């Protein structure tokens, strides 16, 4: 973001948490995407349903207010507070946005 502040570039793109942080330091927001689904945990198609259920239960149980869970969650990212249930349909907004790009653009 310093490249924009230092006038090397006219504009840039940031995740909301960072944009709000820089907003107080000389940055202005001109466009926001719709709400997007975040990083996730996904399992292979053929993983047995019992293991899938156990995994879901274990992830959803993680709670950052639990002193035993906090280091587990925050080792992954200091900003994470836990995990939530999610559906495939929640990612349709990302599918729509990335539609013009081919798989090789990843």
């Amino acid at each position, binding site marked *: 973001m310093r490249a924009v502040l230092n006038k090397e570039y006219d*504009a840039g793109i940031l995740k909301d948490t960072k944009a709000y942080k820089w907003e107080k330091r000389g940055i202005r927001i*001109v466009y926001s995407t719709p709400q997007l689904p975040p*990083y996730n945990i996904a399992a*292979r198609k053929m993983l047995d349903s019992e293991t899938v259920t156990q995994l879901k239960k274990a992830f959803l149980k993680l709670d950052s207010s639990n002193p035993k869970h906090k280091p587990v969650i925050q080792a992954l990212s200091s900003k994470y507070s836990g995990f939530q249930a999610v559906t495939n349909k929640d990612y349709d907004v990302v599918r729509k946005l990335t539609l013009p790009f081919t798989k090789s653009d990843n």
Partner: protein
Amino acid sequence: MFESAKIVTILGLVLSLIPFSVASEQKKALRFGSVAMDIPAVMHKRLTPLTTYLSKELNREVVLDLSPNMKDAIKKVSSGEVDFAYLTPVAYIRSHEAGNTQLIAKTVTQNKGSFQLMIVVREDSDIKNPSDLFGRSFAFGDKAALLQRAAVLGAGVPLEKLANMTFSGITTIL
């Protein structure tokens, strides 16, 4: 009559092996993959507490299987080389297209289960809306962050209309 007895015997054998194969799969270590967002040593450090936690919760060994890039991480979970993986939004949709992967959970950041990408300019800039970006220079994060480029296009700014762009390589891959 003899043929029918043979079929019944074979069927019985096959059916008797099903519980055994399910049980043996459940005993195997679970392989936990991840898209590379850091150097392998850092990624390993970030995921180890979660791996240990899951091993305890599931009463089953869980081993990390890190990928050097997004393409490899997508391939591993969609082909079944790993049992589950920590993925970016784009990596998930690609793995679902390739191998019908199933979602387990999404991450929550600062108590929020979604996020926005935001185009920003200097406070004193004459750029007031996305259409003012035509012919201007633009700084992206990592080149692998396809969602960032998709967001700019989604804002009505074709990338070829930018005067030039750079990839700092330091922003979280989205």
